[in-house]
């Protein structure tokens, strides 16, 4: 009974190595997210400035 419990706890962790790549993808996603956000913000600022000039 005790052995079954241990196996149930250990087995999912045995495959954690297959998911390590996620930690390497995260910085790339964060940088891409930051780029998209700042590009949108800059475009919005440019539109606002153009709007002010027209007024």
């Amino acid at each position: 009974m005790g052995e079954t419990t241990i196996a149930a706890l250990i087995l999912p962790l045995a495959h954690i190595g297959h998911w390590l790549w996620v930690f390497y993808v995260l910085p790339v996603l964060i940088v891409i997210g930051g780029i998209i956000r700042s590009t949108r913000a800059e475009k919005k600022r440019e539109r606002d400035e153009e709007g002010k000039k027209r007024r």
Partner: protein
Amino acid sequence: MSVTLPFAHALVAKQDLPIPAWLFAWAASIVLVVSFFALSAAWRKPQFEDERWRPSAAWLSQVLRSWPLQILCGGLGVFLLGVGIYAGIHGTEAPDRNFAITFFFVTAWIGFPFASALFGDVFPIFNPWRAIARVAGGACALLARRRMRHLAYPEKLGRWPAALGLLGFVWLEVVYGSSGGVAVGLEPHAAGVAACVYTGYTLAMMALFGTEVWCSRGEIFSVFFGMFATLAPFGAKDGRIGRRRPLTAAARWVAAVPGSTAVVVASIASTSFDGAEDGAYKSGLEHVGRWFSDAGVGPLATIRITDSIFMAATVLAVAGVYLLGVKGMRSVPGAPPFRELQRGFAHTLIPIALAYLVAHYFSLFVYQEQAQFTYLLSDPLGTSTTNLFGTAEYGIDFSALSPNVIWYVQVAALIAGHVLGLTLAHDRALVYWPDYRRASRSQYWMLAVMVAFTCFGLYLLSVGGA
């Protein structure tokens, strides 16, 4: 008796790091982002457009380009090629004991890029095919009593033959050479035959298009090593050796000839594939390989087909990531056409190609050069029948580098290569967008490309087999 180990690129033992390996990818990404902001704030005028060429003393150029030195170095190149071919065909079939494999795939293939990046284009003087072609061309001209005429090289082809040849060379080593899923390296006999075939092909192309033209366009090794020489602080111009600002020659090397981007991409992709084959790609290769096995394809053919598919996919992925970065730049107002941008920024990948070479092969180079200059030099055939320099009994000292030292060199090389790439890209952006704000904005996507390449490179190294 010397140490006999299977020839493999996986000479890296597991590190004992104070923090998880993936944290290095985060740290490297932070370094790149901080460098990007520092460049945006402080680097407002192009610095790499002017080479700042300073010719050396005339006597130095005369000595380095003198006939006796050319004959000596060219002769050495021809002799070593001959030894490699002979050892490959007549020597032992154990790749780690045969001079040919270590000489072709480690000493020359990895050594010349390192030497070129430090000292400039040193390969032409040792290039055995150039030496043979020059002697043969001179002899033919003497006999015919006129200068030999050549066909005009189709400029549209540019460096494409070298890019394809580069992939072919790596394919020969890591795909054709792999057997049974274990990286034991190419059989020396196959390497010897391949060297003979390549010699015939190169000499024929040199006869058709001219020695120097083929060396600058299609000869795989001249183009590949010459690419790294553009990073060096030394070069040659109008027959004079001189100094220049490091990295400045790279932009012109890529922009001047079509197909140069393909050479850089092929270099990064082939190194990545070599690193990933026994690590990151392993389960994928096994998975795809099962489809072919189930379809009745033989085991060796299955390995070669799946490896070829993954290698091609790696080339497409590297090219795709770079082209995405270029496409991102196109969205900034005032951007030049896509094709111009694609050519204009490809040189920024050359430091990354060098970084990948250092990261993946530095330990292999240190270990195998011990073999090269001891037992392989004394017993080139690996048959234990000769001991030319009395070093046939030597072995490789694998304690020369600790796993942690290897890892730190790999991380440092990758970060330095990508920061240099980012710097070159920012500098080039200032040429296309004189407004530094727009120039910085255009580089957002190149930053993403650099972060992606860094994390990918560190992932490949961390999962082993690299």
